[in-house]
């Protein structure tokens, strides 16, 4: 029986992965169909099929444009962003051995907000807003990482505190930028940007960002077992033979790139990177080898559903962060309730 359990568990996890992969596929088709201009599932599958294999389609141009020009890019973007944020959340939580850490905590989001806000102040195009946001996010994380070097204490707790310091300092700067921004045009765009949305995404930009996301994702998946080892604590991991500095550095860089990449696609989106890894752990346990790939699926699915909701409920489109917050907060409460026994 002992020999049997790991194999059975493995099958179980493959089954869970397949279920969510199936749900994601259904979600994709559903998301293509719904919206102001509705398309039947048959039509959308035929358009996608023909497009993939370069065949001509006999459906009206209007339908094709809505599907290929508008919906497909933002649907892909939402799946990519959800997956990236969730995987980076899981990785951060592992290396900082704290399940309450979210991808934003090293200051990525606050830095990205400042970058985007500066680009908006300078009246630059959306491409530059994304680029500035990306750079801002990376600079903020670098700042967070340098403080422990000055204090000469590289423990996790100092890093977390340093993230809080940098985060709040940067939000003051961000407040200042908002204060000097033109309230009628710039302030509105800045505010809109910080609440996250997928409506401006172009397929060409998405592919650029995808390059920034795919490589770190692969590295995280490959090093996922070592994230488990690091989650035991620095000394213990070191004594087991782990090159803690190298692995931790690599995971932080990759997770940060994932977060910064998704922030520059869609603005700042809260909650996803915190709750999806929790939900994933409930399904497959804390082992990152199983958790990180599953988080990709779960996060992609979650974000796809949320984005589809934002553009189908109500007359006006709603910023994504509002919905993730409304769904995320009670969901997190429920997760905490489920896990209350194990949280001491």
């Amino acid at each position, binding site marked *: 029986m002992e020999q049997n359990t790991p194999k059975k568990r493995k099958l179980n996890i493959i089954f869970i992965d397949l279920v969510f992969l199936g749900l994601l596929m259904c979600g994709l088709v559903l998301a293509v169909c719904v919206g102001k201009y509705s398309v039947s599932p048959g039509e959308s599958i035929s358009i996608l099929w023909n497009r993939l294999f370069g065949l001509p389609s006999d459906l009206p141009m209007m339908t094709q444009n809505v599907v290929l020009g508008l919906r497909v890019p933002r649907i892909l973007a939402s799946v990519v962003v959800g997956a990236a944020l969730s995987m980076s959340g899981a990785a951060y939580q592992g290396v900082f051995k704290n399940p309450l850490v979210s991808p934003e905590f090293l200051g990525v989001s606050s830095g990205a907000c400042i970058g985007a806000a500066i680009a908006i102040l300078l009246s630059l195009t959306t491409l530059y807003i994304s680029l500035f946001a990306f750079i801002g996010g990376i600079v903020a994380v670098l700042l967070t990482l340098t403080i422990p070097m000055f204090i000469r204490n590289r423990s996790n707790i100092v890093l977390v505190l340093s993230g809080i310091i940098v985060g709040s300092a940067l939000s003051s700067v961000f407040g200042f930028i908002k204060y000097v921004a033109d309230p009628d045009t710039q302030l509105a765009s800045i505010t809109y940007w910080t609440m996250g949305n997928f409506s401006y995404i172009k397929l060409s930009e998405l592919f650029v960002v995808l390059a920034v996301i795919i490589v770190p994702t692969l590295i995280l998946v490959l090093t996922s*077992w070592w994230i488990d080892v690091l989650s035991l604590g620095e000394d213990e991991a070191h004594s087991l033979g782990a090159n803690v500095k190298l*692995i931790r550095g690599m995971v932080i860089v990759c997770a940060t790139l994932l977060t910064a990449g998704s922030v520059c696609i869609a603005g700042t989106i809260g909650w996803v990177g915190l709750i999806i890894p929790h939900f994933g752990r409930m399904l497959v346990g804390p082992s990152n080898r199983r958790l990180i790939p599953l988080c990709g699926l779960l996060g992609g699915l979650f974000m796809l559903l949320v984005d589809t909701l934002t553009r189908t409920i109500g007359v006006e489109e709603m910023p994504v962060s509002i919905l993730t917050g409304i769904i995320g907060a009670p969901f997190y409460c429920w997760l905490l309730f489920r896990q209350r026994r194990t949280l001491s």
Partner: protein
Amino acid sequence: MSTIYDIKDISFAYPTLARKVLDGVSLEISEGDVLSILGRNGAGKSTLLGCMLGLLKPQEGETVLSGRNLRDMTEREVATIAGYVPQNHIPAFGHSVFDFVQMGCASRIGIFSHPGKREREDTASALLEMGIEQLADRPYTEISGGERQLATIARAIVTRPRIVLFDEPTAHLDFGNQIRVLRIIKQLADKGFAVVITTHNPDHAMLLGGHAAILDRQGHLVSGKTEEIITEDSLKRVYGSDLSLKYIEEFGRKVCVYPNL
């Protein structure tokens, strides 16, 4: 008998503390040795283990591990020779006991790789050896303290190191579990592992026999055969109270008792 650890005159001070925690400590540990390191709270027992594992870098002196200078060795090389059982604590995530023990194979795993068939088999046999195979699928955070200690020992021996270092293996355990863990340590020694433990309890050192070392508040270490090192005088110096050593014929060994409060 081949030497595993040859510690030569090491001194260590934490950057934030003025006093030296270890001051000119020398120690030799050979194949098959059992060594109990005694000392008061905060005397630096864990610090000494940290220096032996390369987690801490002594400012003076050098440590030779299996014929090589510890400073020139990677963490991976150290881990293949010395297994470590840290003080019992509960980690943030409830990995299954199997996964937890399997992490003991880290020194064999490439940085972009993960454990394979051989590691799974070694893990299964380490669990069996510790008698905790029935816990394999339980979360490590949800088993008892004694069981966690056994899992941590299994993790330390899964790759068959030459020596196992225990940091206060009996701390936070009830009386029965303390004895159980000591018995397992003794069995490990019988199987040929060299064993080092730190402990507060002189009785544990005498139960294990072999060698003992006493680390005092000044960071000096004396070591030798247990019965020569643990005397009423030395105990008084370390613990500052009148402990008494009585020979009990029935057990054929000395026990450490406190006469009266």
